[in-house]
């Protein structure tokens, strides 16, 4: 469900709850009001009865006919009132009680009617009247008390229910919003993780199908973006490689042109001066042609070799051990040029998973370049360290030689690029670059003219590649 809808739903539920509680309270209040009105009437009735009894007492005390009339008047009033409030009484206490009340009144009325003349002295009559009156009064008071109790009960009940529902609503609101916040929080965290992974070049997608809501829409969009980014990166790498191939092809053409020219010139000159040549000289010409074709063959073979995708024989290796091995290989060169070695090898470095022969080739290439840049008596600096953020090993090989001009730094890994005056195919760094890239690593250069050059190689740990046991698939 969309988050929008979840929130609407929550609001609706809250509103309904509040409305229900309100209606309940309102209903109770109405009931109380009704009962209250009834008690007012009942009190009126009771007051009437009181007056009636007073008149009754009066009559029996003084034999006053006026008192008797008074009683009769009161009875009539009561009768009228009873009729008026008949629906209220029936609603409040039921028809049965009303009938009983009426009967009591009727009995009383009859008794009063039977009194006349001189019965005010008749104590038996007095007694009967008194009893009937008492009945009436008591019954009426019971009804009133009943209603009062009921009102009390309703008020207490309402109070409790309102209190409980208040807490229930608060609890519900708290739980529900908590749920939604956690829900949204989780989804957002997924999005953050995803974008973070993408920014480090790790283009994995979120595997599970994105949910059918706003967050899901965001995740879908990010997945699409990640795909596009990956495509663009591939294209970029491809075009870089094509550019590199362009340079390579130009370099190849140039390399091949010299032997070709030699063969051509040998052939042209041979044809021209043939008559004047001795047998040995003629043979010599052809031998030189052959030499040049051999030169061509070697150049082409080397290039094919460089162009072949490198078959790797990968195994777990310890970085510092590899470094020590290549140092042994270049030791002679170091001694000849009187170069000091400064080693700063990190401790407890995680192992790497490499084709050791190829990586040695790269390190030897770096070291050789450094030695050649320094001439006599320089310092070769080798550092190894662990980069925990990326789970990678970093190797630095630096010299304090003449350095490389900034305009060349961009091209330093191009094939056939060389700043060296002496021989060198210019392919060493290009090949090294390819090897490191094939190991999911990275290689870059930092240099300052006059101060020196440093190559920085990073390689993933065997754990990052999930290859710490060779058996892992």
């Amino acid at each position, binding site marked *: 469900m969309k988050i929008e809808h979840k929130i609407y739903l929550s609001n609706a539920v809250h509103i309904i709850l509040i409305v229900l509680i309100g209606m309940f309270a309102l209903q109770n209040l109405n009931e109380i009001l009704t009962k209250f009105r009834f008690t007012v009437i009942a009190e009126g009735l009771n007051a009437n009865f009181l007056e009636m009894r007073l008149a009754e007492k009066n009559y029996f005390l003084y034999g006053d006919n006026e008192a008797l009339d008074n009683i009769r008047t009161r009875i009539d009033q009561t009768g009228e009132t009873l009729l008026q409030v008949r629906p209220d009484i029936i609603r409040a206490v039921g028809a049965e009680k009303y009938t009983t009340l009426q009967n009591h009144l009727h009995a009383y009325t009859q008794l009063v009617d039977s009194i006349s003349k001189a019965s005010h002295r008749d104590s038996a009559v007095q007694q009967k009247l008194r009893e009937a009156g008492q009945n009436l009064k008591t019954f009426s008071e019971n009804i009133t008390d009943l209603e009062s109790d009921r009102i009390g009960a309703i008020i207490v009940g309402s109070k409790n229910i309102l209190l409980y529902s208040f807490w229930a609503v608060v609890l519900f609101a708290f739980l529900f919003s908590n749920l939604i916040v956690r829900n949204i929080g989780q989804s957002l965290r997924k999005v953050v993780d995803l974008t973070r992974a993408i920014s480090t070049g790790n283009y994995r997608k979120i595997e599970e199908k994105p949910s059918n809501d706003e967050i899901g829409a965001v995740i879908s969009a990010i997945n699409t973006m990640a795909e596009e980014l990956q495509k663009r990166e591939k294209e970029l790498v491809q075009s870089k490689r094509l550019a590199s191939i362009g340079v390579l092809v130009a370099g190849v053409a140039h390399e091949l042109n*010299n032997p070709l020219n*030699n063969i051509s*010139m*040998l052939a*042209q000159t041979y044809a021209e001066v043939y008559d*004047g040549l001795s047998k040995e000289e003629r043979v010599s010409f052809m031998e*030189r042609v052959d030499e040049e074709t051999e030169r061509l063959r070697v150049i082409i073979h080397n290039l094919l070799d460089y162009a072949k995708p490198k078959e790797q024989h990968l195994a777990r290796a310890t970085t510092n051990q590899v470094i020590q091995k290549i140092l042994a290989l270049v030791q002679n060169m170091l001694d000849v040029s009187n170069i000091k070695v400064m080693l700063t090898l990190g401790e407890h470095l995680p192992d790497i998973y490499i084709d050791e022969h190829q990586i040695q080739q790269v390190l030897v290439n770096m070291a050789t370049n450094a030695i050649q840049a320094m001439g006599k008596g320089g310092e070769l600096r080798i550092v190894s360290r662990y980069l925990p953020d990326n789970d990678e090993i970093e190797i630095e090989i630096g010299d304090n030689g003449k350095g490389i001009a900034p305009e060349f730094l961009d091209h330093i890994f191009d094939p056939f690029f060389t700043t060296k005056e*002496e021989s060198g195919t210019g392919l060493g760094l290009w090949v090294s670059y390819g090897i490191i890239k094939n190991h999911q690593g990275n290689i870059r250069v930092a240099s300052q003219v006059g101060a020196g050059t440093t190559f920085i190689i990073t390689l993933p740990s065997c754990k990052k590649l999930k290859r710490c046991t060779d058996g892992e698939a």
Partner: protein
Amino acid sequence: MAKHSIMVIDDEKIVGDMAKLSFEQDGYEVETFLNGESALERLKERRFEVVVTDLKMKGVDGLEVLRSIKKLYPGVKVIMITAFANLDVAIEALRDDVHDFFPKPVKIKELKASVKRALGEE
């Protein structure tokens, strides 16, 4: 009549050797050099009428030779040959007043014709 003198500069030995054989057949005097420095040194000692030089050499390259000659020995004609023939380089050389420009592999006949023209212009 004094023989015409030609200097050939190329780090490929065969180029110098073949050029020497070929031009000497036609009665030229030829001296060959494997790098720019030794050639420029020689030029201090002896006057050559035409200098044929490769473009891309270690150390002093063909363009430097061309500029030096134009500065120090303006009458000397320079012809450039190169395995590395692209337009930018050709334009640069032409700007520096190179007489002719040949990509490798070189046709010796054409080279000879160009040398003749260079001498004819004297």
